[in-house]
């Protein structure tokens, strides 16, 4: 997407100075209540329609997942998992997959192109595609394996949380389309309150381990789930139990960067002053030979 809210940027990729953030939007969140989802894929259709995306027609892979995976043209995909948490009690868990809009986004941390990934003060993490250089570092940095690089234009794509709609006071397209109210949108605080109500309700109905998925390892997310089995998020097509930015990525994009740059500049300075202090090694008797 493109940046329509240039005055409320909390973080900007590969940028060492503060970003324009004179405006402070309220922190928002999308709540996806997996327990109310009927798997109709209206959200997928709405996403395609609003964002004007048309994926290639795929093949049936023996499940309802269609397309099989996120792609540069499919920013959200319903993931269908058939599980038996209690023996002989089949459950069909349907999770709307897509960008989680981490408060501490691994993609943004990994991105080397200034301003190709931004996080608005409302929490939305957005790819500013015209600045994308196609290196794929965002894929490396994402704890949820969400960004996809297009084979057509070598740019990274993912859910923008309809930043263009949110910027003008509308809810994301998927929220608007959801017929059961399983997807909601609003202030993050309100979403967590609503999620807590849903969790209480689910617990009453026998889902002892129901809970809200707002993983603290990435500072919380701006897409939160209500899960029937919050103690086992992996049941939901491998949703990570404790996602965080990989320590490898943190090392690479954290302390290593300034130290290595200092070492390289330091080596040049050391050489310069060594030459000035000790002087060169000259060939003494060159004239006579």
């Amino acid at each position, binding site marked *: 997407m493109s940046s329509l809210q240039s005055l409320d940027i909390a973080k900007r990729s*590969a*940028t*060492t100075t503060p970003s324009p953030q004179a405006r402070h939007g309220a922190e928002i969140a999308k709540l996806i209540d997996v327990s109310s989802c009927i798997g109709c894929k209206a959200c997928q259709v709405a996403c395609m329609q609003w964002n004007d995306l048309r994926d290639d027609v795929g093949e049936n892979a023996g499940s309802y997942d269609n397309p099989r995976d996120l792609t540069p043209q499919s920013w959200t995909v319903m993931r269908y998992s058939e599980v038996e948490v209690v023996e002989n009690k089949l459950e069909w868990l349907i999770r709307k997959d897509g960008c989680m809009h981490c408060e501490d986004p691994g993609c943004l941390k990994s991105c*080397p*192109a*200034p301003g190709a990934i931004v996080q608005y003060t409302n929490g939305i993490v957005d790819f500013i595609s015209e*600045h*994308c*250089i*196609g*290196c*794929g*570092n965002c*894929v*490396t940095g994402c704890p949820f*394996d969400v960004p996809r*690089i297009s*084979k057509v234009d*070598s740019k990274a794509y993912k859910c923008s949380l309809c930043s263009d709609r949110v910027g003008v006071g509308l809810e994301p397209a998927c929220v608007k389309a959801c017929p059961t109210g399983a997807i909601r949108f609003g202030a993050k605080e309100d979403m967590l309150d609503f999620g807590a109500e849903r969790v209480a309700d689910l617990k009453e109905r026998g889902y002892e381990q129901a809970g809200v998925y707002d993983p603290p390892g990435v500072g919380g997310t701006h897409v939160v789930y209500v899960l029937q089995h919050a103690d086992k998020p992996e049941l939901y097509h491998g949703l990570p139990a404790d996602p965080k930015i*990989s320590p*490898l*990525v943190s*090392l*690479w994009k954290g302390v*290593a*960067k*300034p130290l*290595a*740059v200092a*070492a*390289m500049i330091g*080596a*040049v300075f050391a*050489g310069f002053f*060594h*030459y000035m202090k*000790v*002087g*060169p*090694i*000259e*060939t*003494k*008797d*060159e004239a*006579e*030979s």
Partner: protein
Amino acid sequence: MKLLQRYQDGDRMRHWLVALLFFMAAFSGLAFFHPALYFFTALFGGGAWARILHPFFGLAMALIFAGLFFKLRHENRMTDADRAWRARAGQLLRGDKGAMPPVGKYNAGQKMVFWLLSSCLLLLFITGFMFWQPWFANAFPILLRRIGVLVHAASAVGLILGVIVHVYAAIWVKGTLRAMTRGTVTEAWARQNHALWYQDMTRLRK
């Protein structure tokens, strides 16, 4: 001025090709390493072009270097004499060259730089494929790519530090540079800095 042949023309040209490719790969790579260095992308036509070109520079550098490596590795094997030389390297750095034991074609410092550059280039070569978009990256699981980028960055820093030492040594020890610009060095230079090599080179003459 009596001269000794130190490098053949082919090796010199290969060296300079590696050197030019090193600068291209280093500047395009550093651009992605730290935001303060992103302006280097301008040398290559912008961020996307720097990203596209960087792996080709690197691959070409590694492959051409490989030729030099296989030619020079025997001459760069570390010996006990080298370890003795290395133990006294501090004195040389303080300017006391008289204290150094005589060395052959390469001294221990040069050999260490040779092995540092070779191993860094090998690591860069291997890890470079692990996140090369769009050709190879998708063949590697994301964990491997994370290890790959970290090792790639670390060995690039090792390579750059090695090259800084390499270039500085050539500036520091006068008369060295012509070994690469002309292929020859003066006999006096060889006698002073590589006495055993000087003996080898002149013994045949007698």
